[in-house]
């Protein structure tokens, strides 16, 4: 199994700074939902370099991104399956940590 980046929407949505999107080395991997005002990750494109984690921790100072084991994410967003369809992002089922389910 492997790690991928995961954005905590409730923290990210407070600022909507988009800094991580600018510095991720991979194209269309940190996507941005303008209506929900949050970044989210295309897990099938993430190479787990952790640049976004340090950007969000140190530049944005929000610590909204963590590296998570792929099997611990429910409904991971995959660009190869969903395509780039901004109109659908608002209504999609959000990726979340399996551990968040119980609470």
């Amino acid at each position, binding site marked *: 199994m492997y790690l991928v980046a995961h954005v905590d929407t409730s923290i990210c949505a407070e600022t909507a700074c*988009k800094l991580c*999107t*600018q*510095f*991720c*080395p*991979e*194209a*269309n991997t*940190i*996507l*941005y939902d*303008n209506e929900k005002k949050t*970044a989210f990750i295309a897990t099938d*494109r993430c*190479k*787990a*370099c*952790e*640049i976004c*984690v*340090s*950007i969000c921790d140190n530049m944005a100072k929000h610590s909204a991104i963590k590296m998570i084991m792929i099997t611990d994410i429910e409904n991971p967003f995959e660009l*190869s399956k969903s*395509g*780039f*369809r*901004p109109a659908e992002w608002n209504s999609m089922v959000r990726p979340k940590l399996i551990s968040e389910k119980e609470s």
Partner: protein
Amino acid sequence: MGREKIQINEEFWDIMPDDYKDLVNHSTYGKTDRGWKDVGSSTELIAEHSLCAGCPESIAFRHIMASMPSPEDTVMVGSTGCTSLVFPMVAVHNIHSLFGNQNAVATGLKRALNVRFPNKNKDVIVLAGDGATVDIGLDMTLQSWFRGERFTTICFDNELYANTGGQESGLMQKGFVAKMAPVGKKFEKVRLPEIARESGCAYVAVLTTSKPSLVERVVRQAVLIAREIGPTYLQIYTPCILEIGKQSMEGLQEMRDAEAAGERFKFREFITPEAQAFIDDMAAKKKAEKLASAAN
């Protein structure tokens, strides 16, 4: 070619790959004000490729693809090296040339495009590693500048031959030890930006890819000046994190350190008075347009 050229015939929509449909629906072809601001909300002109996790070359690629003024009328010329792993995943016409020949191929291409499309701007952008630009292709690089060929040369300077495991390059720093260059480099880093200036380039810039807005300004300027005035050259530091022993998340800091005051990638640019006048004139026209549209 314009945006209409990538449209899909209605009959074929159901069999076209999703990636292609996304490019038709959400990319920035044909947008005159395209730029770095579009990245989160558009389909980028580059997709999954096999560069290492965290490689600054892939950040630079994203920044450049977002910044070129008219991708639908651009042809890129690549060469062998890590960059050649990306070109198959780039949604702009491109040619892979034999290692070192990129500026010769671009010369022929640019001239042919001028003959074939006399009334259209067709941009040619060479993008190659330091080994290709400065060592094996130096002859072709310089001769194209001497001849005043109107295209942009971008060198991804990672100061060694990354794709073959870390051999010494002309742009490597003096004293640097790499896996396949254990003795340490005995000569100074070649001063290609200065050589470019003296060889006929109308615009030269040295930078890293740590600031997307700077990359955007410099790339736009280089492409537009190459269209109208003469050859342009950009040297961008894209450290090979693998060969210099950095972690995947350390590339950005490495670039910031290298662009600090007095360091070898401190931002610097050179522009001829003619090219500067052209840029000023363009800025003045844009401002006048803005004022006119605000008044309406």
